[in-house]
């Protein structure tokens, strides 16, 4: 595109993104290649039906079923499929395990890759330039932005996602949760604990 074209475009393009998407959607509908009801349906799925609750069920199962845990760490994709979690942006899932000695944290430095079927859509901070740029060079400082202090004797591992591989952190099971059911355990698993910018909640 020449610079002339750029100037030309800038004089026409709506400054409001709401108008700009309205224009595109309306054009696609006119051409018969987009069904607005299907757009509504997809929005509803990601707003109300897919979210970190899915990942929490995976984690709770891994905490209570040692065989499932092994399968999850050996082949994350197959293990989460056992629970029915598959779909766009979840084609290849790798689970990384937090231990006494290792804390894992996940990022997508280039954009926003994230395991949609397990965690839903990423929060704004995950997609921010600040998080993407800094967590790979000063992860401990970034974790402190989240109020998480990882002790110096613990190794911090940062996993950079890409469009082929999506990571989920298997957080440590909190102390005092020994008697809880799988469903109760799932309540302790936060989104941040599965990205690695947090840890699982302590039982009430």
């Amino acid at each position, binding site marked *: 595109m020449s610079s002339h074209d750029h100037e030309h475009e800038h004089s026409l393009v709506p400054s409001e993104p709401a108008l700009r*998407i309205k224009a595109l959607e309306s054009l696609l509908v006119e051409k018969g290649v987009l069904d607005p009801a299907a757009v509504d349906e997809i929005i509803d799925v990601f707003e109300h039906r897919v979210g970190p609750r899915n990942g929490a069920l995976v984690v709770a199962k891994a905490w209570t079923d040692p065989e499932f845990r092994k399968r999850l760490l050996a082949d994350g994709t197959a293990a989460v499929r056992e629970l029915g979690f598959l779909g*766009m*942006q979840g084609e290849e899932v790798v689970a990384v395990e937090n231990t006494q000695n290792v804390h894992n944290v996940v990022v997508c430095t*280039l*954009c926003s890759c994230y395991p949609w079927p397990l965690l839903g859509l990423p929060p704004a901070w995950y997609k921010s*330039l*600040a998080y993407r740029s800094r967590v790979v060079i000063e992860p401990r400082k970034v974790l402190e*932005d989240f109020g998480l202090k990882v002790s110096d004797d613990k190794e911090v591992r940062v996993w950079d996602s890409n469009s082929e591989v999506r990571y989920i952190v298997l957080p440590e099971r909190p102390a005092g949760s020994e008697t809880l059911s799988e469903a109760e355990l799932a309540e302790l698993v936060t989104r941040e604990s599965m990205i690695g910018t947090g840890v699982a909640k302590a039982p009430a």
Partner: protein
Amino acid sequence: MNGVHDVGGMQCFGAVLPEENEPVFHAEWEKRVFGTMCLAMIDGHFNVDELRHAIEHIAPAEYCAVPYYGKWLRGMEDRLIAHGVITREELERKWAEVQGKGAAA
């Protein structure tokens, strides 16, 4: 390609600001961009790698200034035009129309 999107290791973007009780979307237009994008990919007009390529080619200053779903929107327009699903002229006519500048222009 190395470019402005390749931000890993830079320290100039300030603190990470997590939001309490963050909604899935922050505005109605973000929802429409998201849903339209998913369908465009499901319908096979382009794939996620092409989209990322298009987003990575947004001019650097614009890349940093435009919000996340704004980048998606630019990338989607670019790919739909590239594959002949729409033309730039049609899109410009629509831009004029939604801004009340006359559909017949």
